[in-house]
């Protein structure tokens, strides 16, 4: 009998909803959060700002966060019309690195504002590489028609120190994903996904802790017609970049097995009954903390039988220290890596729906991904939430895990003659060390290199 999915989802939803507390607690907590947030917003006018810019100021320090683009070095400047007289056309915020505050672009749009709003997230997602930012850019549409952020450009922040630009929005890329032209209706507002990259040779360096002046920047379409673009500039705002602390690494948890966070790895490689082995020649010796690195891992049939079966899990590789899994598993591959979709990990040829056959000594290789972030047992093995997640610099072991379902075994003689196939129902779990890696720290923009 076929499974009735609609009914099952409804039943499941009812069961889940039956477990929650009455709404009063949620209402009270939501109102408290909103009240605190609204107290921090004090609209004011700063001399020198344009009439359409709204400045937010508040008591207490603000923190600055970054949204990282993993492949900045591959960014291509989109063919956006030259709005601000840049030589050669095209809008490239990176050209403002080192420029004085007076050179920043001015707002050309009217009745559209870019706000910087702050809120202290209670379950803030992790930022793998850089400082934590508590805030958002908010596009507010005071016009009578819908407007949207221009496809192909990234809204973002400029940071200034002593009146000089030290960090900018990421440059626009062709075919930029995600933003589209999310339209903000007349009278509405939209949270704007933003970027921020430090100036200098290494756009993935950290921004040094301290106080900065921030401006928001976005290009908006639809003010006059679909062919023209306008600039929005918000600020200045005072922001504070905090110091990044190393996370507390996971401790041993006897209730979980590798590759899950806190699992204790075996003293020697465990390969089920010895039928399968995982190895690699491509693991790099060093990598920067927070990075996602990929390399080839080979699965080898080390038994004397031809094995027919299916993959039950992806091959997971994790960082281990002192015998405990402390690194996070990868989950999603950034689309900029090209080969895999944003939503999943392509298991081919180890697709769980596809049977594969391996003769004795046969190998097959797949790309695996090692993410140099700390895991948090509370997050079910994914990266630590609410705090910096990069693995502390130092030496780690790299372990691989993989489950394979063997459905048929066929003995093969030395001369290659197959025997009689035997049905099997074996789940082979491989847990093995594939190498070591030295994790290097992220450089900090503006800090001098220390002499050893």
């Amino acid at each position, binding site marked *: 009998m076929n*499974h009735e*999915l*609609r009914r099952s*989802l409804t*039943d*499941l*939803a*009812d*069961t*889940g*909803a039956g477990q*929650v*507390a009455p*709404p009063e607690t*949620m*209402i009270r907590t*939501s*109102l408290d*959060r*909103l009240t605190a*947030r*609204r107290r921090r917003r004090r609209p004011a006018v700063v001399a020198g700002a344009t009439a359409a810019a709204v400045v937010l100021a508040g008591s207490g320090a603000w923190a600055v966060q970054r949204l990282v683009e993993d492949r900045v070095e591959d960014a291509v400047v989109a063919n956006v019309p030259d709005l601000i007289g840049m030589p050669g056309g095209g809008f490239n915020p990176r050209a403002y690195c080192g420029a004085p505050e007076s050179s920043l672009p001015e707002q050309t749009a009217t009745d559209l504002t870019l706000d910087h*709003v702050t809120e202290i997230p*209670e*379950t803030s*997602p*992790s930022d793998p590489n850089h400082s934590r930012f508590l805030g958002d850019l*908010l596009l*507010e549409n005071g016009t009578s028609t819908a407007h949207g952020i221009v496809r192909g450009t990234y809204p973002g922040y400029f940071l200034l120190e002593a009146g000089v630009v030290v960090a900018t929005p990421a440059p626009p890329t062709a075919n930029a994903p995600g933003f*589209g032209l999310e339209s903000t209706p007349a009278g*509405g507002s939209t949270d704007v996904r933003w970027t921020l990259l430090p100036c200098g040779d290494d756009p993935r360096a950290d921004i040094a802790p301290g106080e900065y002046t921030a401006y928001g920047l976005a290009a908006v379409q639809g003010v006059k017609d679909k062919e023209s673009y306008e600039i929005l500039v918000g600020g200045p705002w005072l922001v504070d970049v905090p110091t990044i602390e190393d996370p507390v690494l996971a401790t041993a948890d006897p209730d979980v*097995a590798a590759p*899950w966070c806190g699992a204790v790895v075996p003293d020697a490689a465990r390969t089920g009954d010895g039928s399968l082995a995982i190895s690699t020649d491509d693991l790099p010796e060093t990598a920067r903390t927070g990075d996602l690195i990929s390399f080839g891992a080979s699965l080898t049939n080390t038994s004397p039988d031809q094995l*027919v079966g299916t993959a*039950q*899990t*992806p091959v997971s590789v994790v960082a281990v220290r002192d015998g405990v899994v402390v690194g996070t*598993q*990868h*989950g*999603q591959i950034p689309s900029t890596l090209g080969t895999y979709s*944003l*939503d*999943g*990990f392509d*298991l081919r*040829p180890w697709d*769980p*729906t*596809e*049977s*594969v056959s*391996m003769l004795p*000594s*046969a*190998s*097959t290789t797949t790309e695996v991904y090692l993410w140099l972030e700390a895991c948090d047992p509370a997050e079910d093995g*994914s990266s630590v939430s609410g705090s910096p997640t990069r693995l502390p610099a130092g030496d780690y072991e790299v372990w691989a895990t993989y489950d394979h379902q063997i459905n048929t075994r066929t003995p093969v003689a*030395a001369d290659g003659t197959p025997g009689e196939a035997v049905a099997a129902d074996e*789940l082979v779990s491989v847990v093995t060390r594939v190498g070591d890696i030295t994790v290097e720290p992220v450089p900090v923009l503006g800090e001098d290199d220390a002499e050893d």
Partner: protein
Amino acid sequence: MADWESALDHLARTRHRALIRYAYLLCGAVREAEDLVQDALVKIYARKHLPAADDAEAYVRRAILTIYLDGYRRRRRWSGIKHLVGIKDHQESPELATSTQVDVAVALDGLSPRQRACVVLRYFEDLTVPQIATTLDCAEGTVKRHLSDAHARLATVLGPLHTPDEPGPAAPAATPSPMKTFQPPARSDNATPRSQS
């Protein structure tokens, strides 16, 4: 009580259960569903311009979905079949009443966030493919691919699915693709036969 407070209070009291059901199917855990709904309420009612009363729930549902997807983009969930671990987790959960619900929960956990969102929007919210595409800001073909991939993964746990009126992609060819066979590396003249090693 200010207008925004009254509006939030009214929406949360009258639509609390409906929002929790939706969030629960997306994330699969009661506590996380409560957090999703609360974060969405704060996000919407923190804005300077509040939505009209009739539109508020739609805005909150949209925010629930966005927070769910954005959260997973950053937290990097493990995609793939982890049902061997998932079964253990859900069997110990007091939330689920029947073994069928355990199976469904485990099956949903095997989906990627976008696949799961598409399944929930299609079979729980009863949106059409074009409506889902608009909600997720992606092409209709992408939605169909997500639904097709989700079907395949769900079927490995739940068995064949009965989903009438499913506008999925064309049915796969009747002839199955040949099984991949991996051969050992070619043996050189100096190689030692396996039986002598």
